[in-house]
């Protein structure tokens, strides 16, 4: 807890580590600057939220689809489970590096596959228009299995009776999914999505390794901006206030999570 309090205290000061001057107390000026005076920070916040919504949205839809597909007895369940875990534990730095090579505009395998399918090649992380999407795709690759596993666990615990009743009443499979499966699965799904969202808001490794926020700041999320402020420009006071702001955003998401956990009964 002490480091957190210290960050809070730091956020009220103006202090460059490299300079000889000691920290100077400037009250809430840093926060004032964040909220009203720094368009770059505001853009980073919007970008972070956009990245999170994009990645987690895709993960939820894909993960749910996969869970529905795999929710049955079949040969190779164990293999599937193993495969699903691998991307989640793989070192993000290494994964980022592999994707950098795959995304290479002229030599990368991604563009080769894209042209085989008949699309025109992209510039992936090498263009400011597509960089954020290309990064979100890595996140989707890594974390869709998590949503799938949680949804699978949720599906396994569903009761059988409502389906039989619905079947007798003549409901179609789609209707049964929409009116029975989805509502019953909601608590597990909400928790999964919020956990993912909390982590996606804090994504650092992959972005830092692959683009460092570029090209032209097009993938600069709050975490990256703050890291650079702190450890490239050594503007520690200002960076601290951004850290507090980021914490507030993540805490907001978490409060919802804790509330949901409490109301859900399982």
């Amino acid at each position: 807890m002490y480091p957190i309090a210290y960050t809070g205290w730091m956020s009220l000061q103006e202090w460059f580590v490299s300079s000889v001057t000691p920290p100077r107390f400037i009250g809430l000026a840093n926060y004032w600057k964040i909220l009203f005076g720094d368009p770059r920070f505001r853009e980073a916040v919007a970008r972070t939220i956009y990245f999170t919504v994009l990645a987690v949205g895709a993960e939820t839809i894909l993960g749910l689809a996969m869970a529905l597909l795999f929710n049955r007895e079949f040969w190779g369940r164990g293999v599937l489970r193993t495969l699903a875990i691998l991307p989640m534990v793989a070192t993000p730095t290494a994964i980022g590096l592999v994707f950098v090579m795959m995304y290479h505009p002229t030599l990368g395998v991604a563009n080769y596959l894209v042209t085989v399918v008949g699309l025109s090649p992209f510039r992936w992380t090498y263009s400011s228009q597509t960089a954020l999407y290309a990064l979100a795709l890595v996140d989707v690759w890594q974390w869709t299995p998590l949503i799938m596993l949680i949804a699978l666990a949720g599906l396994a615990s569903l009761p059988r009776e409502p389906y039989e009743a619905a079947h007798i009443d003549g409901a179609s499979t789609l209707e049964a999914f929409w009116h029975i499966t989805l509502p019953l699965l909601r608590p597990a799904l909400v928790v999964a999505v919020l956990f993912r969202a909390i982590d996606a808001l804090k994504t650092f490794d992959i972005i830092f390794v692959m683009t460092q926020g570029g090209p032209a700041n097009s993938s600069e999320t709050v975490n990256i901006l703050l890291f650079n402020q702190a450890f490239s420009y050594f503007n520690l006071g200002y960076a601290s206030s951004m850290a507090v702001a980021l914490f507030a955003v993540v805490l907001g998401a978490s409060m919802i999570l804790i509330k949901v956990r409490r109301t859900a009964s399982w």
Partner: protein
Amino acid sequence: MVRRRGARRVASTAGFYGLAVLFMLPTVFVFYWMITLSLKPQIEATAYPPSFVRFSVSMAGYREVFTKYPFLLYTWNSLVVAAGCTALGLAVGLPAAYSIARWRQQRLALAILVARIIPGIAYLIPWYIFFRQLRMVDTYGALILTHLIVGLPIIIWVMISFFEDVPGDLEDAGLIDGCSYFGVFWRIALPLVKPGIVATAILSFVFSWNNFLFSVILAGRETRTLPIAVYNMISYEEINWGTLAAAATLITLPVLLVALVAQRHIVTGLTFGAVKQ
């Protein structure tokens, strides 16, 4: 009629496995690509169009990783930090989890949850200042302590649910027979949660092994861990893909192997117990 139904079943099974392969293909492909790239000689690694199945195997990438860089030192650093972080995490986390589970300390449990949620970078700035003042930047101690912030909440959180499953009667019986609270914890509770200990130990090891954010700032020349080493290689090697892929493979493989051993509980840890398995 019977035959037609059989044919339909075959078709539906084939369709199912077709879809299954389609969904899992990206997962497999990225790892496959990483490993094959690492085995290709330089010219073939950057050949376009790339070769998927037929290529000549070369160990040049791996040789370069070990001869051009002190890769063994980096591996050793990663091992020491991850093992230290795990050992310390268990030493602190197990009693904490036991106490939270046994005496239902909900507030503490909530604090652990918050610790899991705080962005790591919010810790990093004050740590950086402290460790600089203490002249502890570039020491194993600083890395182990900082990696604990990732590992400890997971150890505690997952172990709480394991300790909750230990029957209270058993512990009461131990107390009546003259065991101390620590004795009950050590002799009765701990042996019963052994599977959980193994799982959380592996998880905490993996998280420390993978950590980039803390090490990039706090590790120096002597204590640089593998993720940082690989990150630095990107700028040096540019398009020397065989070498880069070899390095990526070398840091990923141990984690993947370790994960296979404890796959069941890894899910619990990653979801932070969102779903009880």
